[in-house]
Every structure is written in C-alpha cells, then in structure tokens.
C-alpha cells in the first residue's frame, strides 16, 4: 500500500477514533481522541500496519494558549519503513491519559518522564514516579508556567560565594 492509501486504510480501520489527518512538512500526522489512544495504538501495532517501534512519546504544553496538553506519539513500522505521528489532546486542568505499558516496554520510562516534566497522569501505569528530577521536587519543570531558573536545591547551598 502506498503512503496515501495507507493513511486511508488506517483511518478506516480506526474509524471514529481519528479526529483529523494532517500533513506537517511531509510527515503523516493523525489526531486521535485521548480516550481512544490505547486501542488505536494497539491496532496500529498489529498485523496490517505493524508499527513495531514506539519511537518516542512526548508532550507539548499549550495550556496557556488553548488550555490543553498535547501528547505526541511517534511510531515506526520496520517492514513498511514509514513513520507516523499521533497526537492526542488532554485538558490542562487534570491531564490524564491511558498508559501504553502493556503494548511497549519503553512506554514505562517515557510516561514516567512525561509525568515528571508535565504532570500528565497515566492510568494503569505500574509505578508512576518522577524519573529525571528528584523526590522532593515540587512542580513540573517543562510546563510553561514553571519559571526557567527556579532552583530547588536538595542540600543547603553556601550562598556567600
């Protein structure tokens, strides 16, 4: 299947979960409803499309502008040699999404990092803790609301230097 009808095939197989199909600088982008992310990605991982690699999971903070966080998944299918970007928006108030831990094993750390940096809770995640920052760290640094240079030292620092 060529790239065009691949997208149509995906759209038809995922049905109403797909909100929009876009193209950004030549890459295929699929916008999916937040609650349909897990079944959609599970389907994409299986036979006809076999997106075997969860390349990347990250999050973009549009809280100030549009009051939402946008989860961005990148999938890669080795047999088709093609990349797919999937976007799902979660409300900024109480950002929560379904976990992918059962489908891919690297999802555990990826989701822990997004939780640590943005505060997006992933239901069903076995061990949702901070990954990059430390236990006593309040707030989520990559949110636009978090000041860039607000340090939270773990041990008292000599400031007379």
């Amino acid at each position, binding site marked *: 299947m060529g790239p065009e009808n691949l997208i149509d095939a995906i759209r038809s197989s995922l049905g109403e979960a797909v909100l929009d199909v876009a193209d*950004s*600088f*030549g*890459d295929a982008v699929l916008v999916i409803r937040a609650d349909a992310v897990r079944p959609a990605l599970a389907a994409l991982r299986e036979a006809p499309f076999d997106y*075997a*690699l*969860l*390349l*990347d999971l*990250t999050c*973009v*903070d549009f809280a100030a502008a549009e009051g939402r966080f946008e989860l*961005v998944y*990148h999938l890669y299918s*080795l047999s088709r*040699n093609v*990349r797919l*970007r999937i976007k799902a928006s979660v409300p900024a108030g109480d950002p929560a999404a379904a976990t992918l831990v059962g489908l*891919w*094993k*690297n999802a*555990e*750390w990826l989701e822990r990092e997004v939780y640590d*940096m943005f505060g997006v809770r992933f239901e069903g995640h076995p*061990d949702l*803790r*901070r*990954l*990059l*920052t*430390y*236990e006593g760290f309040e707030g989520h*640094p*990559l949110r*636009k609301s*978090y000041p*860039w240079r607000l340090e939270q030292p773990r041990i008292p620092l000599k400031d007379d230097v």
Partner: protein
Amino acid sequence: MEPLTRIERQARPESMLLNMGPSHPAMHGTLRIMLELDGEKILNAECEIGYLHRGFEKTCENKTWFNLLIYTDRLNYVSPLINNLGYVMTVEKMMGLAVPERAQLIRVLMSELSRVSDHLTCLAAMAMESGAFTVFLYMMKAREYLWDVIEFTTGARMTTSYIRIGGVRADLHPEWRGSLATAIKETRKVLKDVSGLLDQNSIFLGRTRGVGVISREDALSYGWTGPCLRSTGIPYDVRKAHPYLVYDRLLFEVPVGEAGDNYDRYSVRMREMEQSLRLLEQVAALIPDAAPLPAGPVIEPAEAIRRSRRTRTAERIRLSPNLEGSEKDRLAGLTAAAPLASVPAKEDTYTTMEGLISHFLFFMRGKGIRPPKGDAYFSVEGGNGEVGFYIVSDGSDRPYRLHLRAPCFHIVSALEQLIRGRLLADVIPTFGSMNMIGGELDR
C-alpha cells in the same frame, strides 16, 4: 530519610541491597543501579537516572534558534557533530533550505568522524571496565588522531558547533586530506590490534558471549535502535532506511549480529567503524579541493572600512585567523543562499550597509532565523541509534517546544531486564556495551 524506592519495598529482608551508585567508574558517573543480591546473584534491580538532567529542553525554549546550537553539542558529547546535524536538518526541513553540495559532503565527513570516535570511546570504556586497560589506551590514542582532523577544521576538539543551520561554518582546513589519511591509517591499525586482543580472548568472551542477551521482540518492544538493535539481527539504520545528505550515493553495508548479547554489540560496533572509515575515504574522494582565494592586494579591515565610506572597495580584506575558511568567496559553497538563514559574510558586514543591516538583523531579538509555524520530526543515525528532534515552532525566534528522541534512553530502560538473574560482575560489560551517555539520557 528518603521515601522507600521500589526496590526497597519489594526486597526480601534477608537479601543484601547494594548501590551501584552514580559516582561509580563503570556507571559513567550518572546512573544509579540499586541491586538486590543473593550472594553474587542479582534478584532484582532498579535503575535511577536523571543525575545529569540539565534542563536542556527547558533551556531551548528560552534560547533563539541560532544560540541553542551549542546545547546540541553537549547532548551526546561523544559524537557531538551528529547531534548538531540532527537539530540543524530538522530546522532546515521546516524552513525548506537547500544546503549546497559541498556543505553536505563536509557534513557527512564530520558525522562519520564523530561516529568512529563515538564507537572508539564506547568500546574503550567497555573494555577498560572489563579489565582490558590496554585497549582503552590504544583507542584513546586513535581518537586523538580523529579529533585532530576535527580540530583543524572546526577549531574545537569536541564541542564544535560547526554544522550550522543552512550549511557549515567554514571550509575545511587546507591540509585536511593529510590529517584525515593519518587518522584513518592509525585507526585501522588500532582496530586490528584491538580485534587481535579481544576477539578470541577467552576472558572477554567469557564475560560477553551469552551475557545480556535480548531477543528481537524485546529489543523492538523497548524501542531499541542503532548498533544495539542491529546486534539482535534487525538491520535498521536510518542512513539506509531514510537516506539523508549524500548517504544514498555512498557504498556501505550495515553490519548485523545474531544473538543480541554483549559480544554482538561489541562486534557490530567494531565492523561499523570499518564501514565508517570506508565512508570517510569515499567522501574524501568526492570533496573537490577548495578553489584558492583570488590573488591580489589584501587590505586591513580598518582600511577597508575607511575606504568604503565613499566607494565600494574591491580589494580582498584580510580576515582574522579564526574566520579562516569562511571568506565571502567560499561562503557561497558552504551555506544556503536564503536571506537571514546564516551569518552573513564578514566582508559585507565591514564594508556595505546592506551587509551591516543583515548582520544586525540576524542577531537581533525577534529577527534572525524564524521557521514557519508548525511541528516537524527528523532523525539521523547517531552513535547509539536514531537521534530524532521533534520541534514545535510558533513562528517566533525561539522554539515553542524542542524534544530530543534520545536513543540511549530506550536502550538503558532495558538494563533492569538484562541483568536480572545474572551475576553481579555481568552488570559492567552489559552496561558498557549499551554506551549510555548522560547528556543524551537525561537531557
């Protein structure tokens, strides 16, 4: 007292809990593995990362597109030019810049040099941590020669920021062919010595063959890419899957392992270094010699500025040594022609009003490089795997969001599974063969 980590809650009372902590020679200083031991056998392990989280992505949201190039050097600091390349090509993809041929060839030359020095450093550390100190010294010697080639051209040994948006900063050093030839010869000699030392070495084989085995399904499920994925037999290489720059015109194979254990990761990296040396020779043949600068009188910048007050000066201006290679005649072949895509030539800035204005416009806040609104993802083949940059731009002079897809983040996430049930000593070669780089892992 810190709240109990996962391993402290699950550990059995009689087993011994040990920290293979951040400040450990084999943990590259930034990873803490908490091990639950039954004698020497590892019952359970938990990795704690983030000790080198330097807030890269937050810093990028507050820096202009041109200024944050220096941060990309320090991501995978073993092969810095490849990170430059990844970031720069993502921005070029958004701006639709056409990079001239010579700049593309120089970029391939520089990223292959970086790849060989990445594999050299990884295998040197892995061998030294398993006891082969001689291999470490040999490989560091070879890396010095490679860094000499990079230093002649870019001026810095490691953190070069040489590959810029739109092309490269300056032309190659006049004697770059000689230093490249010595570097390749020395590296081949070291590769022969090291494979003689390690390939059939029963101690090294005992510690790596059949240790840290991962199946193909697990490797894919963990999102592995690069030499570690190829060691399990899946020949996925971004240079072959999505050829960029001039890789489609160059001949090279993708070495593949079978069992996916430490030894295969070692041998895939060794064979990949030979392929990269081969690539270096092919690219060196493709790059034409730089045209010599036109002869004729050369005047001082101050004199040129004084003269240019009334009439345009035609003579060549003598630039300061650290601008060598980025003279105006050479700059055309090195950077994209788009306006405000790269730093304008110094000769124009000194003598013409338009040059001065474009120079200030480039560096002024709110002006300079501004890719169109939208988001883009582009990835290149780094030392550890697919180095991908996902950038969201809102049209301003600062990226709205910049995310790095770090290959070794996914590789290290599999470490707990690889060492569970093994002996304590197997952690070191397994972790060494993964080539964890703190800057890229924790960003």
